[in-house]
């Protein structure tokens, strides 16, 4: 109960404030169109009529939350009920395309990131030559090359999942390298000395000491990495949009001013991000608890 009052209530207040602002914004932004319509019809709008109109337009500048929710339900739950969960009009279909690219890129990026971090920790030359570039590359807007990667990969015959997941891989790769390098170096001198006293080989030290003690760092990076992966997959879908995906859905929506469609794709992407980060968080909690590292 204390937890409810001390942390849930403030969060709910902030969320409620966001909804209030959202509805108010919808009235403000959509009122021009509502007045135009009323003018042409030659009627004057009362305040309640104005509000009712701004919250139910077909192509509003800012759709109300209930309109977006209705659209999301229409393209997910309702389609499942009709047994068309994977039809091309369903957000589940588009979400699945984005999710599969995200996951492939995330797994590859994490794998390469861990391998590179192990190399960096064990080889001084590699550390001094690669690490500055890894850090410098964080300041470069990598996402900007996404369209080029996708188009070039397409022209040499890779299409669909692979180009998008390469962008995802690239984005999730860097947080993992930086985090894992820190994590693999986190055992202190005493622990390293203990390993030396036991005459442990480098490989044994890595498996028994360095990898276990890097877990908290790894999971922190994984949370950043999986969110970045999703962004990468979405941006990767922008240039080639006949394949579908949430990014394609947004672009098509913006071509045809289908604001409700854009918002529903956006909120689905947000929900996807939240679920992915949440899953990593759950695995983190379980793993660290198992290893006796939970704080």
């Amino acid at each position, binding site marked *: 109960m204390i937890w409810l009052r*001390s*942390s849930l*209530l*403030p*969060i*709910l*207040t*902030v*969320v409620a404030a*966001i909804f209030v602002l959202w509805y108010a914004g919808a009235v403000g*932004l959509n009122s021009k169109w509502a007045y135009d319509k009323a003018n042409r019809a030659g009627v004057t709008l009362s305040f309640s009529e104005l509000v009712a109109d701004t919250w139910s337009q077909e192509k509003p*500048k800012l759709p109300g939350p209930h309109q977006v929710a209705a659209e999301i339900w229409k393209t997910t739950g309702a389609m499942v009920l009709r047994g068309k969960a994977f039809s091309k009009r369903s957000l589940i279909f588009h979400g699945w395309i984005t999710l599969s690219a995200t996951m492939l890129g995330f797994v590859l990026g994490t794998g390469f990131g861990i391998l590179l971090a192990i190399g960096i920790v064990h080889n*001084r*030359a590699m*550390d*001094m*030559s*690669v*690490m*500055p*570039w890894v850090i*410098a590359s*964080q*300041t*470069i*807007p*990598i*996402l*900007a*090359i996404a*369209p*080029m990667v996708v*188009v*070039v990969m397409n*022209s*040499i015959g890779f299409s669909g999942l692979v180009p998008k997941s390469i962008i995802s891989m690239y984005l999730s790769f860097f947080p993992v390298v930086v985090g894992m390098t820190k994590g693999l170096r986190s055992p202190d001198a005493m622990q390293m000395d203990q390993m030396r006293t036991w005459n442990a080989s480098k490989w044994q030290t890595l498996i028994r000491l360095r990898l276990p003690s890097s877990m908290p760092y790894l999971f922190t990076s994984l*949370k950043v990495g999986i*969110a970045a992966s*999703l*962004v990468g997959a*979405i*941006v990767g879908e*922008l*240039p080639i949009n006949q394949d579908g995906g*949430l*990014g394609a859905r*947004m*672009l098509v*929506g*913006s071509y045809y001013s289908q*604001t409700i469609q*854009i*918002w529903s*794709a*956006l909120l689905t*992407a*947000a929900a996807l*991000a*939240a679920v992915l*980060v949440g899953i990593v968080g759950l695995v983190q909690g379980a793993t660290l608890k198992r290893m006796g590292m939970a704080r």
Partner: protein
Amino acid sequence: MNWAVFALGFWGVAWWINLRLAKMPRSRVTSFAIPALFGITLLVLWEGAVRGFGVNPVLLPAPSAIAVRFATSIPILWTDFAQTFIKGALSGYLIGCGAAFLTAIAVDRSPFLQKGLLPVGNFVAALPIIGMAPILVMWFGFDWQSKSAVVVVMVFFPMLVNTVQGLQASDHMQRDLMHTYGASYPQALMRLRLPAAMPFVFNGLKICTTLALIGAIVAEFFGSPIKGMGFRISTEVGRLALDMVWAEIAVAALAGSAFYGCVAMIEKAVTFWHPSQRRG
């Protein structure tokens, strides 16, 4: 083929030199020379691979070709840079970070709002906010105002979360001391809590430099006037003029690193007292 052999040879020699350099005690020279040599090696390998295997320039232009294109199209690159970076990214960065900073100070006096804002802000910071781009382009038109708006939305929450955390960074003893001095809230804020928050604030500012540039460039994919880095990248990709695309990417990389470097330098001047800045 000779080119490829040369590049491989260069790689071997450079790696050998780096191994030798890495064994020397760490100094300014080695910690600059090693990454520099590594970077040059990558460029030579790239050039050698493109020339040696005759890679189609439509797929991957050689670094030399990109450099030539860069040098010959500086006016275009400059107008794109001004449109995207100065008008779009920089204005949005200033507005967004400023607004987030002021919001953080405004909610500072209310622990209730802080407890609500921090988790929500953390959550929003992990979302693909870049998806707001098409909506904001629709609202604010094709010119730089919409890019600026995208940047504002992108940098707001990371900056907010960092500043709110920073304002909580001073510890109890220090706050008690301020209390003993009879310091008013504004005095304690100005003299203790804001200075103590600076490392966090600059952490947020540094994260936001990259976000700002990404936001401004990606927003241009959804519609822009006929200039701007994102516009140029997407149209030149369509024309398969990849040397121009790479030149634009070089500009973006330079601008991004310079921007980050500037913020880091200001940070050094402001938080000179912090352990991470001191050289022992």
